[in-house]
C-alpha cells in the first residue's frame, strides 16, 4: 500500500493549520481510511493537545528519526477513531534536529502503513517548513481572508512550486460571511483572484471550533457545526469526490436576513 502524503502549511502562524490537520485527519478516518497525522512543528508541539492526546505521548518524531524507538511505538492510536494515529513532535528539540531527507524517509515509511499521511507544518519559510514538505506529494495552503495571511500564502505557493511540487490547493479558513456581505472582509473570489490557485474548501468562522478544541474534541462531532461540515466536505474532495461548495450566506437570525435583503436590494450584492 502506498499512501498519500499531504502537507498542510500556511506561511503565517495562527491561521488554523493544526486545527485543519486534526479535523481532516478525523474526517478521513471517519470515512474509514487509515490516517496518520504528523506534528512537524518540532519544539512547538500542539497537534497532540488539539486532538486531546497529550497525555498519551511516550515517544516522538525525533525519537523515531534518531532510532530510539520504532515508528509503530511512537504512533498514538486515537481510541475514538480506530483508523487514526498521531506522531507527535518533540517538545525539547528544535527544527534542526531533523533533516529533509530524514523527513522524506519517515513519510515513505508511514505511507506504507497508512492511506493518508497528513503533515502539520510549522509556520514560517525556514528549515521546519522545508522539512514538512520534504516528503509531500501534495501541499494544502491554509489562509484567512486577511492581508497578512494572503500575502504569506502567496509566498509559500511560490516556494512550493519552486520545490517542483504540484501547485497547492487552498483552504480558506475563518471566513465571516456577515463581514463579507458588508464588504468588510475579502470574499472567497477575491482571495482566489489574488492567489490564482484551486480552491479545496472554505471553512466559516465557528465558535464551536474553540469550544471543541478546549475539550480536545473535534468540531466534526458537534451537531450542526458549519465548520464541521466544511471539514467533512474537504475530506471528501481529498478523496476525489466532487462536492459543491457550501452556501456561506446562512444569515444570522431575523436581523441578519433583514439586513441582507435590505443591502441586496440596494446593491444587488451577494456574499
Amino acid at each position: 500500500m502506498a499512501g498519500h502524503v499531504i502537507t498542510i502549511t500556511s506561511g503565517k502562524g495562527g491561521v488554523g493549520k493544526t486545527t485543519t490537520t486534526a479535523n481532516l485527519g478525523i474526517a478521513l478516518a471517519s470515512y474509514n481510511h487509515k490516517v496518520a497525522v504528523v506534528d512537524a512543528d518540532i519544539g512547538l508541539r500542539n497537534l497532540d493537545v488539539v486532538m486531546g492526546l497529550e497525555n498519551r505521548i511516550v515517544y516522538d518524531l525525533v525519537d523515531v528519526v534518531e532510532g530510539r524507538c520504532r515508528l509503530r511505538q511512537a504512533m498514538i492510536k486515537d481510541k475514538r477513531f480506530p483508523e487514526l494515529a498521531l506522531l507527535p513532535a518533540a517538545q525539547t528539540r528544535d527544527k534542526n534536529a531533523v533533516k529533509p531527507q530524514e523527513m522524506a524517509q519517515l513519510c515513505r515509511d508511514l505511507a506504507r502503513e497508512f492511506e493518508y499521511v497528513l503533515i502539520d507544518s510549522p509556520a514560517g519559510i525556514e528549515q521546519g517548513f522545508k522539512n514538512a514538505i520534504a516528503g509531500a506529494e501534495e501541499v494544502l495552503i491554509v489562509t484567512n481572508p486577511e492581508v497578512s495571511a494572503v500575502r504569506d500564502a502567496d509566498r509559500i505557493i511560490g516556494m512550493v512550486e519552486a520545490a517542483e511540487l504540484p501547485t497547492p490547493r487552498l483552504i480558506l479558513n475563518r471566513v465571516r460571511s456577515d463581514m463579507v456581505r458588508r464588504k468588510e472582509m475579502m470574499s472567497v473570489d477575491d482571495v482566489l483572484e489574488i492567489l490564482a490557485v484551486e480552491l479545496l474548501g472554505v471553512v466559516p468562522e465557528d465558535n464551536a471550533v474553540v469550544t471543541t478544541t478546549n475539550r480536545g474534541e473535534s468540531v466534526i462531532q458537534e451537531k450542526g457545526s458549519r465548520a464541521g461540515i466544511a471539514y467533512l466536505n474537504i475530506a471528501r474532495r481529498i478523496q476525489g469526490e466532487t462536492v459543491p461548495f457550501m452556501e456561506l450566506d446562512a444569515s444570522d437570525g431575523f436581523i441578519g436576513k433583514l439586513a441582507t435583503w435590505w443591502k441586496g436590494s440596494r446593491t444587488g450584492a451577494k456574499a
Partner: protein
Amino acid sequence: MGFLITWFGRREKSSSSVAKDRLLEVLIHDRIKLPPATLDQIRQEILEVLSKYIDVDKNGMEVSITRADGGAHLTANIPIRRGEALDLSDDAAAEEHPTPSRANRPAPQAAGRNSGPQSFGPPRKRRH
C-alpha cells in the same frame, strides 16, 4: 449616527476592496523581488521603446505580475490610442517628435476603429 451615513448615500471604497488592491500591489514586488523603483524604470523603458512605433496611452499602462503555469508572468497592459501603427516611412521618421504630432492630427479613418487596450504577454490565468 455613523451607520445612517453608511446606509444612506456614502459611497466610500469598501475596506475589503482596499485590502484586495493593496495585496495585488504588494504581491507584484513580492513575486519578482523587484523594488518599486526598478519596476517603474522597466515601465518607462517599455513605453519608450513602444512609442517609437505605436501611439500608446502612456497614462493607461498597467504592469502586473501574475503566477501561472508554475512561474511568474509579467503582464503589461498598454492601451493604444489609435488602431493603426505609426507611419514609419523615411519622412515620418525624420519628424523630431512623431508621437505627439501624430496624435494631434485628425485621423478620420481611425475614428471608428478603436481597438481598445492591447495586451502584451499572456492573459492572467486562474487555475480552478
